[in-house]
């Protein structure tokens, strides 16, 4: 596989090339004071010179003193929006009169997607949702439709936010590419570390001296793209610069979630008083589930058009934080906020492993930053760990 170094200008050629090849290119850009991922017409829209400032209950942007294109950590809401859109039609029933109807499946998307600027933890999140939607009982048509032909241009992190903890999970901040495939770099993998979705190209933004991008191809498509782009061979200096960048990123991450024994710790502490404590703060606003790149829960909605001739069966994001979520028979199963926060955290970090053989958290920190009251899952877990209520059995 090819690798090399290109200028920020050559990145523009990549966007044009992808658009030329029929892709809808999606990438980071600044909107309403945050970074979002949306259709990208040109690299001019990238968040040049911005860094994100994230802290519990706080997400904002700040000017950098350089022209970094990828000088932030992660966008407000992930790539999930594209592959598993907030609202999706699954099928529609078309009336044939006389109380009879036929069913039409939603059309497959007509344009392949290309994501530019996918972080290592985000590749892991896509890998997790692949397990849910592609490798379950039935391949999900909508997800598979967007996922098929998806082209991924990953970018290693050089500016992690204070909320990041990929190093605890084993999902970032870098990516190693070799003959065996692609793996997270800069952190150790655990038994529950999710495998990343395979990127086609991996970029590393180098800011020492000349502003440049180290590019490594990881698939044939990536190799083919790189062949069409202007680049030069990488020098040992470039590689050393990447290593230093990665090391600095790794060192900048100080949030920690101890994953050792986490599954049993949480499931063995379902009666822990900390659940009451966090429930007293949690607003059950659903923000954490909406920004989380792995949360997959949905509900369905049925509507008819004005003529009554079309009945739409649509799916939209749902959250385990709502009361209606567990509505069964006369009442809901999870009526208290305590039980709903407990469901969220235990699912994410424990039962997810039972269900999908991987943790449901990639350490992106979004739920911490976007929680209006700053609830931090790493802190909640630490509190439970500090006062582990399990009976010690010899």
């Amino acid at each position: 596989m090819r690798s090399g170094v290109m200028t920020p200008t050559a990145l523009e050629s990549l966007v044009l090339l992808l658009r030329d090849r029929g892709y809808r290119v999606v990438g980071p850009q600044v909107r309403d004071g945050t970074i979002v991922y949306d259709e990208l017409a040109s690299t001019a829209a990238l968040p040049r010179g911005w860094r994100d400032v994230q802290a519990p209950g706080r997400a904002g942007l700040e000017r950098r003193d350089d022209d970094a294109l990828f000088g932030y950590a992660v966008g407000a809401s992930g790539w999930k929006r594209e592959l598993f859109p907030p609202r999706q039609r699954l099928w529609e029933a078309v009336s044939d009169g006389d109380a009879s109807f036929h069913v039409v499946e939603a059309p497959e998307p007509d344009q392949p997607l290309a994501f530019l600027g996918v972080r290592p933890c985000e590749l892991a999140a896509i890998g997790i949702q692949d397990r849910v939607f592609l490798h379950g009982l039935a391949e999900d048509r909508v997800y598979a439709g967007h996922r098929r032909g998806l082209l991924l241009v990953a970018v290693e992190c050089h500016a992690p936010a204070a909320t990041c903890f990929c190093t605890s999970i084993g999902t970032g901040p870098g990516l190693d590419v070799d003959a065996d495939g692609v793996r997270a770099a800069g952190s150790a993998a655990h038994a529950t570390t999710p495998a990343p979705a395979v990127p086609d190209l991996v970029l590393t933004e180098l800011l020492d001296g000349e502003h440049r991008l180290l590019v490594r191809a990881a698939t044939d498509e990536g190799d083919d793209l790189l062949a069409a782009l202007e680049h030069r061979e990488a020098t040992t200096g470039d590689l050393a610069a990447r290593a230093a960048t990665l090391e600095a990123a790794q060192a900048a991450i100080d949030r920690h979630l101890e994953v050792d024994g986490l599954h049993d710790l949480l499931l063995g502490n379902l009666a822990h008083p900390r659940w009451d404590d966090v429930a007293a703060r949690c607003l059950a606003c659903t923000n954490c589930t909406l920004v989380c790149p792995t949360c997959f829960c949905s509900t369905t909605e049925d509507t008819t058009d004005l003529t009554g001739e079309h009945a739409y069966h649509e799916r939209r994001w749902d959250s385990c934080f709502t009361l209606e979520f567990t509505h069964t028979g006369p009442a809901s199963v999870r009526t208290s906020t305590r039980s709903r926060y407990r469901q969220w955290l235990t699912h994410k970090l424990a039962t997810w492993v039972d269900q999908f053989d991987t943790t449901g958290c990639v350490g992106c920190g979004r739920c911490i930053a976007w929680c209006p009251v700053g609830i931090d899952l790493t802190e909640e877990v630490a509190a439970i760990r500090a006062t582990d209520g399990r009976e010690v059995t010899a």
Partner: protein
Amino acid sequence: MTVAPELPVSDLLTSRPYVVSTVRQQTHDIVTIDVRPEGEPIAFVPGQFDMVYVYGTGEAAISASSDPATPELLSHTIRAVGGVTQALNELQPGATIGIRGPYGRGWPLAAAEGRDLVIVAGGIGLAPVRPAILAALAQRERFSRIALLVGARSPRDLVFRDDLDRWTADRRIDVHVTVDSAVRGWSGRVGVVTTLIPRVPFDPEHATVLTCGPETMMWFTGEALRKRGVDPAQVYVTLERNMKCAVGTCGHCQLGPVFLCRDGPVFAWPEVADLLGEREL
């Protein structure tokens, strides 16, 4: 465990239209709706369920209640409790409904072979076990005793009365019916269904039990069976939770690590006892 025949993917995700052939009123709020599939009939295993769709209103998880030996006549028995189920109760023959399925793990009839088969049903809970009863009777020689214990709130809440009459007259199955509160004219037994458990003749050490009803009823049934000496691992329950997708992707039916739609809805009691014992899980 019994597993459904594999279906093409879109059959699991997309509803297909079926014309309603008969609507039978079971009680004031329960109907049985029969459809006759035009193409390939949907084969199912007793205990499996379908997502039944009403045009423009939505879907509900409903167990198949017909004879699995005749998939060309598929029935669902539905109690009106809300939007979709009320609309299903108001359907007329000739109307079209959507069905996708079947889903889930059914009753372990094979595991009960050579043993006493005891079936305990509360209220509309008779519907999901009816296919198992019919399948067991069709291969009667495979089981030792077959006992059916049915409970309902009142005589007017009993479903499948024709079947109950027929089975009561059928010496191959031992039928016991009880109601929580009697009305004038009821000469049968009065009391909750669990009160039948100590009295019905079966060999607790060689019995497999299928139970279906409200969760509390299944708890008390499990307790009464344990007292009688039945191994909890031989007690099977079918669970209900909110369900939207039926294929393990909407997250609604989770009970701890379990997706009811995919891993159930039928479970051996020890598989779920601890999970059900945890409040608000």
